[in-house]
């Protein structure tokens, strides 16, 4: 019986086993990054295009990308235990943000707020990378809220909007998961002082870019 179970597990690896395989992550990441996959016979599922459009939306504009990278760097310092605690705030706030975005709130200030969040999160990672839980919750919550607000589609048919919004929600959460997980994995893999300092330097660079972008955003 144990042999049978072993054979079955070799043929169909469990989800937890899949999560441990770098190849699986590479494929998911490539899928998430590609807005237009090569389908030979048109779209197999109606609405898939809208889902993809929504899914890549959180990665399509610099303020959103910077906020996700900065949050990923911050939350990656506490991977995986602290990340899971903080991620809940992001996931819940993103739902609220999407709802507010549909209602027409926060679009104008959303990008500026995301740059402030990127600046704060990356500065925190550069200066005090161990402070994850409390500021992480606040920043992840604010990040989810504003990311949701700016990720809503233009008004259209209800079905298409729901599909796109679902894609945005999945995309934002996946992006944060992989950014934090990637940093957490690198921290575990190269648990050396130079690697930890490298993250702080990258965080300082992201903070600098966010600060300049914020000033340019205010001027424009």
């Amino acid at each position, binding site marked *: 019986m144990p042999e049978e179970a072993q054979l079955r597990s070799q043929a169909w690896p469990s989800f937890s086993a899949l999560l441990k395989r770098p190849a699986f992550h590479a494929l998911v990441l490539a899928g998430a990054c590609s807005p237009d996959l090569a389908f030979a016979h048109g779209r197999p599922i109606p609405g898939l295009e809208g889902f993809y459009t929504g899914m890549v939306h959180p990665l399509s504009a610099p303020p959103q990308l910077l906020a996700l990278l900065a949050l990923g760097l911050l939350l990656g310092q506490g991977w995986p235990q602290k990340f899971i605690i903080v991620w809940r705030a992001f996931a819940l706030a993103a739902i609220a943000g999407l709802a507010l975005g549909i209602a027409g709130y926060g679009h104008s200030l959303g990008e500026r707020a995301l740059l402030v969040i990127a600046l704060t999160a990356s500065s925190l990672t550069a200066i005090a990378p161990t402070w994850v839980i409390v500021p992480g919750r606040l920043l992840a919550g604010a990040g989810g809220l504003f990311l949701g607000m700016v990720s809503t589609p233009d008004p259209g048919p209800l079905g298409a909007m729901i599909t796109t919004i679902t894609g945005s929600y999945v995309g934002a959460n996946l992006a944060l998961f992989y950014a934090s997980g990637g940093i957490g994995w690198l921290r575990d893999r190269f648990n050396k002082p130079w690697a930890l300092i490298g993250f702080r330097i990258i965080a300082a660079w992201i903070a600098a*870019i966010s600060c300049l972008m914020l*000033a340019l955003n205010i001027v424009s």
Partner: protein
Amino acid sequence: MRGALFVALLLVTEPALAHTENIGTGFLSGFAHPIFGWDHVVAMVAVGLWGAFLGAPAIWLLPVVFPLVMALGGALGILDMPIPAVEAGIAASAVVLGLLIAFRAKPPLWIAGSIVALFAIFHGHAHGTEIPAAANPFAFATGFVIATGLLHLIGIGFGTLVRWPAGTYAVRAGGGAIALAGLAFLFGIA
């Protein structure tokens, strides 16, 4: 892993580029900005050099502090908030940092960080006021910050020579040369 990546890349027919206008130009413009100003180059190399001279943790702390504060100065410049004697401050940064290296000054970490942060404001402000309006902001800022970081790394790389006695003299001589260059900028000779 490599096979999976290859297959994944084959599936990707079109990358997600939301803002394609001027990205290349903006990045190159930002990247070139610190590199084509000699006064900036010597000061940023000096930061890395001094960090290497001071050893850990300053070797990494100074390159973390500099871009953070420089961006703050850059933001002030973009927002048109004036700072007095910016050009003199930039030249003075080369003089002071060069002399600190030449005389092997090793102040406490917070003083070293404060000195670097003070000068970073001047450099950032000068860059901020010169950002071309047409540039893609994200690409420009990214290129600008990466170039600054690489200049620090060049300084750190040269500074690692302090492991050897002869290298220490080379680094101190480099500091002296930076201070002289700073004086030349200060008095308008260069």
